[in-house]
């Protein structure tokens, strides 16, 4: 039996995951709701499987939103600044220096921090029972429902197909000189990388660290940063695609563009 894991966009409103399984005998698709599932060993698998456009598109059409959970950044007493249904905006300004909508305050030892939204949308759920209460670090406090644009949907689907190489730390990133030269010469989608290649330099506090590629071999299909950009830990830096799957990826883009209004 093949297992298809649509991660992370198959994440439901309740924070659980939907595991999609294809029965080889009847060709039926079976959906399972999975709690606390460890996906780490499955991440590479998703890009080796064929793509079921209809299922994916149907899912996005039925629920064209991204659900962003906000968790307590540290222990402390929480006070919500908004109610369920409120519209919120993300950070703005040329340097993203203008904070987004104020979501909640968290106070620890009379040191109060205001946490702002990093995305636009509406508050779809809020744990109002925690208002005024002491919470532990990491406690889920609210969820923002962000309406996806066509471009974001294409990107979300691509991110299910590509191998995503993530930022190891919050830092600024730029391509290694060798990779940058190849990109300038031939374009990113002509640059083949494999595990062990020095592909990126991470710059944090004027310390440059060579970052070595650890994913599956392939070409750099998507670049999610501009050299010198500040990226948060865990954000994808590049999306890598096995060469033989490039036509499939192009098909994803064409199909979504054609079918999405």
């Amino acid at each position, binding site marked *: 039996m093949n297992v298809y894991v649509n991660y992370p966009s198959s994440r439901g409103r309740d924070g659980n995951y939907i595991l999609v399984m294809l029965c080889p005998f009847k060709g039926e698709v079976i959906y399972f709701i999975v709690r606390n599932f460890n996906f780490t060993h499955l991440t590479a698998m998703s890009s080796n499987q064929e793509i079921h456009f209809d299922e994916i598109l149907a899912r996005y059409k039925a629920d064209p939103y991204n659900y962003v959970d906000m968790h307590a950044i*540290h222990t402390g007493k929480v006070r919500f600044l908004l109610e369920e249904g409120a519209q919120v905006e993300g950070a703005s*300004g*040329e*340097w993203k*220096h*203008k904070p987004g909508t104020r979501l909640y305050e968290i106070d620890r030892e009379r*040191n109060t921090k205001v946490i702002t939204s990093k995305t636009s949308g509406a508050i779809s759920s809020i744990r109002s029972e925690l208002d005024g209460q002491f919470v532990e670090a990491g406690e889920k406090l609210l969820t923002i429902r962000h309406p996806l644009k066509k471009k974001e949907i294409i990107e979300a689907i691509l991110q299910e197909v590509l191998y995503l190489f993530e930022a190891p*730390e*919050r*830092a*600024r990133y*730029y391509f290694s000189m060798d990779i940058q030269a190849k990109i300038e010469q031939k374009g990113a989608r002509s640059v083949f990388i494999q595990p062990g290649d020095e592909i990126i330099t991470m*710059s*944090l*506090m*004027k*310390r*440059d*660290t*060579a970052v*070595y590629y650890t994913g599956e071999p392939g070409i750099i299909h998507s670049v999610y940063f501009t050299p*010198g950009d*500040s990226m948060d830990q865990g954000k994808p830096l590049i999306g890598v695609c096995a060469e033989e799957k490039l036509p499939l990826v192009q098909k994803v883009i064409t199909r979504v563009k054609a079918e999405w209004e």
Partner: protein
Amino acid sequence: MSSFIQQIRCHQQVFLDRLAPHSFAPATVQKILAYGAPVGALIEHYEQLNRCMVRLQCLIEKAEQQGRVLEAGTVVLADTLTESSGRFDRVWYAPQGGIWLAMAWPDILLPEFTRFFPFAVGLACCRAVRQYGLDAQLKWVNDILVNGKKLAGILCTSIQSPGGDRYHLIGIGINGNNQTFPGELEYNATSLRVQLSRKIDLAELSGCLLAELRWAIGLLHYDEEQALAAGENCEQGRQSLVLEDWQQLSDTVGQRVEYGFDVQQNPLYQAVAREIDPCGGLVMELEDGARVTEYSGEIIYL
């Protein structure tokens, strides 16, 4: 060749003996010095090299081929460098008369303390220069300025050896007895000799620098130990001991600055430096009053 190294070691001990005791108890001072003890455990000195860091990388690979790891704190010194460079492949002028040094340190700190490594090295350099009576100041992150001119520069990189061991390589350049600088540096660079109007003993300066590096890197490791015991780090607002000392020697806060990832090639914006956050980030105020915090990149004073 070896006598120069012996002189460095003698001077290093002299400076260690008279290190400012800070507010630490004697047992803590001993602990800090023990953490930093590997600094200069092995010293190589050359009359000329292409780059000290390249020599260190060769030593790392050679050690691996022999089935061992390079000694922590291994230092490579050269009287002149032929292919020295700064960040972004900027030219670094390394003639006779300066201190051109690189050191390897194993990557054993937690990431939240590794971020302070460039601050610790800057602190050590600044303190070494101040031993000569100069009012050296640190510009975020670790440029050493005297009277507004750059007297020393630091390059920090982290590498992975072919065998998978990770090291921090630090390159330090201090303008000692060199007095002339090529065109573009003429108005921005200075040296100890220019500032003091006298020649200095390079073995003494090297020994002093190694003593201060031992203290500062030891302090960083001690800082990590204390933070782990307290269960807090900078993300939770804990003030680092290294950063505390660094701030006392820095004149960055209050300056009007230009910021950029590569500020010489691509300046991004101008702002006023307002504070250094507990994680070492530079908090700057833009013209519209909004504040932005940067954790990498560089500034120039306006």
